[in-house]
């Protein structure tokens, strides 16, 4: 691989509130390569949406990037002004799919009018060319081409979401940032949309930053994943590395908290307690109060993100006990051993 598409390096984002500064993202780092789907997972309030918003200058007015760098194709963009973001990045390079499509479409304009408006601001293409591009994208997301001239209310909820995806994609951005794009949709519709995203990746080499609480979607659709807890990246790596060889207790407990239709009888993991209040600085592991394997060391200082194994440079975890935690976890769960065992064995076969 040559230069990565997006590099987020030690990003820290703080919000100014009445009760003082709140650190919403703390030293987050990850890389998205061209044609790569990257998932950012975690509970609500863990900072995953803030991370994404900071990339395209979408932070609320009381929030700011206090340190760290964001590089897009090698250029630092964390200090870009609104004007620069609009002229150089938004839509054309980086597109945003919001959680709720209904609120992001203008009800008074047809989809094609909205597309032409966006297109004339961000590109030099003619109206006819823009409409042609939108048509193409409509057929990719499975909407009839002729419906580009419809108003948003003429679409059903799932179709609106796909229309928003088509709008986000029609200028052929290199990176799509999607914040819970399918959470409000039913499983079948979710699968339809990911089918389209897969196709777009295959055709256009598009990258995706997918923010979701649903780790099963990430494991299925992404190549890399970062799991965030209390504003920090707990573990980061390829989905296979994080799935087969998780190191951070939060990562494997989070994973085990998800029901899996293949194992309806498996006991679901429960992560007790809550992450600490996000204050100025946390001088200890933020997971310590929820972690069954915490030791004194975990309370004395905060672990740094460190490589898990020598042969996998991108797999990192921030846990003092990353060497033994997963083994401890597996040995302590007799009830699930049989199923996990089978799963592990089939994994090795692969």
């Amino acid at each position: 691989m040559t230069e990565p598409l997006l590099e987020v390096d030690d990003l820290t984002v703080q919000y100014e509130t009445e009760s003082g500064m709140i650190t919403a993202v703390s030293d987050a780092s990850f890389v998205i390569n061209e044609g790569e789907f990257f998932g950012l997972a975690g509970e609500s309030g863990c900072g995953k949406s803030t991370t994404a918003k900071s990339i395209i200058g979408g932070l609320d007015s009381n929030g700011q990037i206090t340190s760290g760098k964001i590089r897009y194709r090698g250029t630092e963009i964390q200090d870009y002004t609104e004007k620069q973001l609009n002229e150089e990045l938004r839509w054309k390079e980086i597109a945003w799919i919001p959680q709720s499509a209904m609120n992001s479409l203008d009800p008074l304009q047809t989809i094609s009018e909205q597309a032409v408006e966006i297109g004339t601001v961000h590109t030099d293409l003619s109206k006819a060319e823009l409409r042609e591009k939108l048509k193409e994208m409509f057929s990719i997301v499975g909407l009839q081409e002729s419906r580009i001239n419809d108003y948003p209310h003429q679409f059903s909820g799932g179709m609106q979401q796909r229309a928003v995806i088509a709008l986000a994609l029609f200028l052929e951005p290199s990176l799509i940032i999607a914040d819970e794009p399918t959470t409000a949709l039913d499983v079948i519709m979710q699968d339809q949309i990911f089918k389209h995203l897969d196709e777009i990746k295959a055709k256009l080499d598009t990258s995706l930053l997918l923010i979701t609480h649903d780790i099963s979607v990430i494991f299925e659709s992404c190549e890399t994943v970062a799991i965030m807890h209390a504003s920090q990246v707990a573990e980061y790596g390829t989905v296979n590395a994080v799935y087969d060889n998780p190191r951070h207790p939060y990562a494997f407990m989070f994973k085990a908290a998800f029901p899996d239709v293949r194992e309806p009888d498996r006991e679901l993991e429960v992560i007790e307690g809550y992450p600490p209040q996000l204050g100025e600085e946390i001088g200890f592991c933020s997971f310590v109060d929820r972690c069954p394997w915490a030791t004194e060391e975990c309370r004395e200082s905060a672990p740094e993100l460190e490589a898990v194994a020598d042969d996998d440079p991108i797999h990192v975890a921030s846990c003092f006990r990353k060497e033994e935690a997963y083994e401890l976890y597996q040995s302590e769960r007799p009830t699930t051993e049989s199923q996990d065992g089978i799963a592990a064995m089939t994994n090795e076969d692969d």
Partner: protein
Amino acid sequence: MSDKPPLLEIRNLKKYFEQNSGLLDMLLRREPNHVQAVDDVSLTLEENESIAVIGESGCGKTTLLLTLIGLHEMTGGDIIYKGRPVSEFTSAEWKRYRRNVQVVFQDPFNSLDPKMTIEETLQEPLKIHGIGDRKERVRNVLEHVELNPPEKYLRRKPRNLSGGEKQRVSIARALILEPDIILADEPVSMLDVSTQAAVLRKMKDLIEDFGVSMIYISHDLSTVSYISDVVNVMYLGRIVETAPTDRILAEPKHPYTEALVSAVPIPDPNHDRERTRMSGAPRDPVDLGDGCRFRDRCPSVIPPDTIEIEQEAYREIMEFRELLERDEIAFERVMNTLSGSFSDDRKMADAIREDYFTHELTGENNAVLKEALLAFVNEKPEVATERLRKRFESVCETSPRTVEDEDGWRVACHHYDHGVTEMQIDQPETAQSD
């Protein structure tokens, strides 16, 4: 078993809504549209059993629940509680029913009155039913849902609880009257995953410890598999398949169930799941008429055995016929793509074909479609409709019966309904029930 009636039996329950008709409709004396939210649903809930009703949003599952707790009036059919039909309930029986059937809603943020403390919220049902020992009961129920120690929670208002705690209070409120049945409407879908598991586990324990029965309503098969013994799959107001949970996940029979099961994401990067073959969304449940409700999205609609046609091509014809019968062919829109020449019927017919069809047809199939399209552009849509119906009418346009095999596995699909048709030759692996 035979002398004791089931705890709750739903028999051919129907709930239709009249769609608000405007002034114009009234003046023109148009018949109001009927939203067939729940259409002919039959279910049985035995004591200490947990069953699920799953389906996409808009399939009528929430309407079913609201009808069951008496917030909607039934349009037809009946609900039989311990042998007594709800339609014949006296007011004393209603009171008993309202005490014994409790509900937990999806949204933890609006399920509790923000102005009431937890203690007030939990005492409210007891007051309504004139039950004493309120302090003691509230304490006990809070301990049961693991809100410990209860004193810590009694005086709090909902806004000072987390989502998971709120949902536990909702469950506690449902339990405090010691009901027979709990109806749960996606109780964990709005919770964070770390709490989701805990609440699910709690509900599972409660079913077992308290001997409560539950109807669990959800769109999420993966949580359903965790909590229910039997799954009812609902599509556009009807139950299309009923079977034990593990079996329905392993070998779904109805094409819709199959689509639903195969679309559930698997949290495992090593697992290679094929994406869904379905497209589109369920239509609005308005005046649906006869026939299988799933036929417009079904990947295996049954063509008449007199013709030979590819499934994909046949689906297109089905869709087109549907639009034709509903008078929803966008004639003008298609004509706008045509520059000028409105005199050439053939050109117009071709334009429509290009817009609505992508698959090639051959022989008689092709000839019939051509003929029908020509009739359509000649402003004879009845002729077109009739021509297409004659050649392409599917058995799926009649409502399938629900057939049941020895294990109580029930499916409503023509692929399994031997009595009506002999057409399941194309589906060798599925011909099981009889």
